[in-house]
Every structure is written in C-alpha cells, then in structure tokens.
C-alpha cells in the first residue's frame, strides 16, 4: 500500500544515488540503464531547446518565451509515464511535455512568435495547447475525465499547473468536481517556488500537497527534480485513475531556475544564494551521476547525446525563422465554425480596404 501522507519522496539523491523505497520501487523497476539514459537524453534535449528559445527571444525572433530551466525532471518524468491515449491539459510552461508528446519543435514556438494562438492540433498528440489563464485548464481536464468515465474507457486526463495556480478558484473547483464524481484525472502541480515574483509562501502556509486530502483527494509530495520519483508517482496516480480509484494530486517540488518569462527579471526579487542552493539539486546533474556510476555514460554517449540536443536546437531555430507570417485576412478565420454575416461583412470591408492600397488580400503588394 502506498502511504499518501509522507514527507518528500526521493528515489534519487542529489549525489546520484538510487535510494530504495519499497512502496515506490516496484513502479519503476523497469527503469534499467537504457531507460534512464533515454530520460536523460530527453532532459538534455529539452534544456537545449529551452536555451535556444531564450536566445531566439533575445534576438527578436520570439516575442516571449517561458523557460522551464530546472523543471526538466518534473515534466519529462511525468510525460513519459503517460499512455498515448491519455490527454494532457497543460499551462504554458510544459514545453518538455510537448516535446515528449512528439509535438513538432517549430509548432512549440509558433505561439511565442505570435503566429497563432495554438501551435498544434490537440487531437494529433492528445495534448491541449498552452492555456494562459492560470488554472483554467484544470477544469477542462476534469471535464475530459468525466467524458472518459462516461465513455467507459481507461484513459486518464492529466493537468499541469504551478504553485501560484493553487490559489485560483478554478483549481479548487476542479478538485471539488473531481472528488465528487471520482473523475479519472491527475492533478500535477509543479511547485517551482515562484509565481513570477511571489514566493510560494504567499500562496500557502503549508505544503501544497496537504490541501488535496481536504477535498477527498489523496496526494503525493515528491522531489520534482528526481525523474525517477516523478515517474513513480505519476504511474501510481495514473493507475489509481485507470482502475476507478479517482483523482490524485501530485506536488512535484522543483525550482524555476530562470525567469518567469523572458520579460521577467528575478534579480529584483530573488536571493542569488537560493538559486545557487537549487543548482546543487539540478535534475540533470544527479541523473548524470547515476548514469556515470552505472557505466551508461561514456564519452561517446555523451557526445552523441549532445549532438542530438544540438540538432534539435538547430531544427527549432530554422523552423522558427522560416515560419511564414499568417495572411492578413486569416485574422477573421475560425471565430465561428459556421458563417457569420456580421463577420463576413467586416472581412469583405477590410479586404476592400487593403485592396485600395494596391495591396493583395494576402498582404503582398
């Protein structure tokens, strides 16, 4: 039996040592050297992509970018625990989850370049596109889970949100609904310690994981920088949901090592010593140590992994810069699924206006 009221669950120490825990180990006993190396590769690639996207923003190619630096284990460990028919409802920082889901790299940055409000078709990867309203997506996940329950399938909804979101009414309402209907949904909270400039203590005086039991939802509080613990906890929660056990709440304790977004400046509100302390808990570093001790990391493997990450970054850059601008009149597309006379009139008027400058309706002169 899993104990649902423990302190922080950690299966991989900062020093890269596997810490045995009988109640969790059986959930990750398939993670051999090869599987762990695959997780490391994912984490290295998403960190590299993240760095590249930040650079693209600094170079004016992206309007904004929300870095995930430091949260690689929380995102990769949970995403890799999912089945392809599980459905993900993320916030806007889950770019590693999108990567694991197979979202095209160019599509990941499409939103942040300002080319569209969504980068991909959610149904092709069973992952909704970023939701910017804090916590709103937790209700969508719960509703999707109610649908899955009615369809009598064992697919599960998982929703990602941050520590700040736990103060939102929507997140609390989502937990009320999920508990009331025993919906197959996993609440995955990445407590990265900061909601822009507000430390988590502004949101909660106790551990965030402690809230869920009050809603009738069991919770796990895990080291979010420990990819093995993250995967174990997510698998436990998914299994509960699949087998009629209802919702589970996971608090993955992690750290946003970068700014909230590229528009943010954490030096105004954060003690550098705190960042230095969290750097010692870096999720990649400790997995690297474990893999080294297992003999999985050789210079050749290291070089090959880095080459994969660099290739992904190059692909992202080329895709981003090569993205064509949307056509002007597409501003009117898809407001409704059926024709709308008022909107069609505005479209026709604007097309005429553009043409009056000798401009074609596709924006070319």
């Amino acid at each position, binding site marked *: 039996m899993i104990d649902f009221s423990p302190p922080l669950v950690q299966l991989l120490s900062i020093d890269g040592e596997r810490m045995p825990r009988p109640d969790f180990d059986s959930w990750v006993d398939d993670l051999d050297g090869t599987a762990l190396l695959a997780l490391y590769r994912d984490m290295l690639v998403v960190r590299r992509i993240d760095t590249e996207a930040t650079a693209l923003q600094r170079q004016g190619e992206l309007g904004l970018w929300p870095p995930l630096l430091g949260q690689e284990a929380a995102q990769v460990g949970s995403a890799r625990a999912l089945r392809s028919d599980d*459905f993900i*409802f993320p916030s806007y920082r889950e770019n590693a989850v999108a990567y694991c889901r197979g979202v095209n790299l160019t599509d990941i940055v499409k939103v942040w370049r300002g080319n*569209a*409000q*969504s980068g991909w*078709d*959610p*149904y092709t990867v069973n992952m*909704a*596109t970023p*939701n910017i*309203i804090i916590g*709103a997506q*937790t*209700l*969508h*996940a*719960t*509703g*999707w*889970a*109610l*649908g*899955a*329950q*009615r*369809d009598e399938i064992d697919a599960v*909804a998982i929703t990602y949100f941050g520590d700040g979101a736990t103060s939102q*009414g*929507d997140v609390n*309402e*989502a937990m*009320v*609904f999920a*508990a*009331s*209907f*025993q919906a197959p949904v996993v609440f995955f909270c990445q407590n990265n310690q900061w909601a822009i400039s507000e430390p988590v203590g502004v949101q909660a005086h106790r551990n965030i994981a402690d809230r869920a039991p009050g809603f*009738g939802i*069991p919770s796990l509080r895990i080291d979010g920088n420990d990819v093995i613990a993250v995967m174990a906890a997510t698998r436990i929660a998914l299994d509960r949901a699949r087998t009629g056990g209802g919702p589970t709440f996971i608090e993955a304790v992690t750290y946003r090592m970068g700014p909230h977004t590229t528009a943010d400046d954490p030096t105004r509100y954060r003690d550098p010593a705190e960042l230095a302390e969290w750097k010692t808990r870096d999720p990649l570093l400790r997995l690297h140590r474990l893999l080294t001790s297992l003999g999985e990391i050789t210079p050749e493997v290291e070089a090959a992994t880095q080459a994969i990450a660099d290739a992904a970054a190059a692909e992202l850059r080329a895709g981003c810069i090569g993205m064509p601008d949307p056509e002007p009149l597409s501003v009117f*597309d*898809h*407001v*409704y*699924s*059926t024709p*709308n*006379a*008022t*909107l069609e009139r505005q479209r026709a008027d604007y097309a005429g206006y553009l043409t009056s400058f000798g401009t074609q309706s596709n924006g070319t002169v």
Partner: protein
Amino acid sequence: MTTLMTHTSLPGLDAQKPVPLTETKTLSMGKAINEGLRQAMLDDPKVVLLGEDIGALGGVFRVTSDLLAQFGARRVIDTPLAESAIIGTAVGLAYRGYRPVCEIQFDGFIFPGFDQIVSQVAKFHYRTQGAVRMPITIRVPFGGGIGAAEHHSESPEAYFTHTSGLRVIAVSNAQDAYSLIRQAIASDDPVLYFEPKRRYHVKGEVVPELGAPMEQAVIVRPGTDVTLLTYGALVSTAKDAALAAFDEGVSIEVIDLRSLSPVDYAVVEASVRKTGRLVVTHEAAQSGGLGGEIIATITERCFSYLEAAPVRVTGFDVPYPPAKLESHHLPDLDRILDGVDRVMGRR
C-alpha cells in the same frame, strides 16, 4: 478514504422511457424547453446536462423535470455549486465530443463562470484554428418582473454579444423555445440561450419542428410607420404596444430579434427602409447595451431612409433595483408607446 456515493450509482437510472413530443401541443414555455431538451437528448447520446438542482428537483424552474429519471445521472448531472466549474468541465466534455448543456440557475449567477465563458468557451475554436469545437449551450433564465431578490432579475446579454466566438439567443415564446433550444444544442458553436423567466408559464402552441434558423429575426407583427425591435420577455409587451398604437392610427412593425449575436440585420434593415423609424427596447441598461449597437449599425446602413433619430427604451443605468422599484426600471407598454411617440415626432 470514505467511499463516496458516485452519481452514476444513483437509483432511477433509465427508470422511465423518454417519450418525445410528436404532435402539436399547447405547452408553457418552460415545458417547451423541457421537450426540446428531451428531443435533443434522444437525437444525440452525446448531449449531457450539467447544472445545480437540475436532477431530482428538475431545476428551480422545473425546466429539466423528469430528465434525470428518463436519461440517468450520467447524462443529467447535478453538479456541486460552482459555475466556473460547470462551464469549465463542459469545455473538457466538449473536448471529448460531448454536447454539454449547462444550466445557470439565475442570470446574476453567471459571473463566477464568466471567465470560462469569455476566455475559454468563446476562444477555443479561434485559438485552435478550428481544431477544437465547443458545441456548448449555456441556458440562462434572465430578466425581471418576478419580484425577486437581488441577482435574480438581470439582463447580462450585452456582455456576451460583445464577446466574439459566442452565439447569443433570446427566446420569447413556447414555439421558439422548443425549436431554438434544439438548434442551439445542435450548433457546433457555443450558444448563450436566454430564457425570459417571467414568461416560463405562458402557454403557446408548439409544433415539434426545428422551424426557421435561429439566426433569423422574425417579424411578429407587420406594420408601416415604426419598426419596434426587441427580444425575450418584451416581445409580448411590444405586441401589446403595437395593438394599442394601431387604435391611435400608428402602424408598428414588431421584430423579435431572437438571435442577439449575430443580429439579423437583413430583416432589420428591410423593415427600417420601409418604416423610416426605429425604436429598440430591452430590459438591460442603456449604456453599452445592444440597442445602442443596433441603432449605430442601422444609422450607418440606412441613414438616408431615417425620418427621425432612432429611440431606445431600456432599463436605466442602475444596478437592478429592489422588487418594489422594478416597475419603474422595466420598460412597459406605456414607456414603449412614449418612445414610439418620440420617434413619430409627437412629443
């Protein structure tokens, strides 16, 4: 953990067989909506109802009466008391291909769900470039005249007509109530469906047909001197006003807008080109209201046809007043006729 009673295990699942309306019948408007919901649920197993007290009670206005017994708790879902979650979980259900019908208990209770409606329901189709559809119907009893407490008599429609991505309907009679709830549910776009609560008990003949498309305005009384435009509960008052004015020699054409977004400007323009005079009446406050928008549009499109400045007869720019004052706030027959006199240049 205690074992919760799940709603799917409630007794009474499929206890009764739903019998659809198959012949013309005289029904109250509330019952007509009930029949429309039943038909929509029979037509499409993906139609589910969500709301507070909509199950055993049948809703505070009894609009969902018997549907729990006939379709079971998987499709008629008594929710916890949280409007944002009613709308937000409907979004998730729509993601899975469901057609949720949400009941907001009273007009003034819609605001906790406002963010989900405006930021999510309205935007999803646009956001995802058509990949994700939101065939959600949000039923809202609206309007005053029932002597109710605060937050029970409001007319919030303009917030939603101002929101791109939503369709907004207001019905005025039993037949439209039946036909348009079925059309709203069948729509792949989200629909705000406003039900004038003081007309719930007014009866009318209902033919079990879909009727004219919901975005069409309807001329409910032809006339030649003045176009009187309204929707919801005031359609009946407007028809009475037209009858009274006729006795005084003024011929009023009454239009029931039905669709508040989009507005059927073809019908309104044709009428104003004929009459040259326009009065718009609604219970909602004047400033920023639908009347101002319609008058601006008609003035742009039909300026040379206008014989007089268009007139608004609306609720005042006040929070909805206490019951003892609502008769002063709500446009009534005399205030509408006063507006007609003004557009006719009689005062």
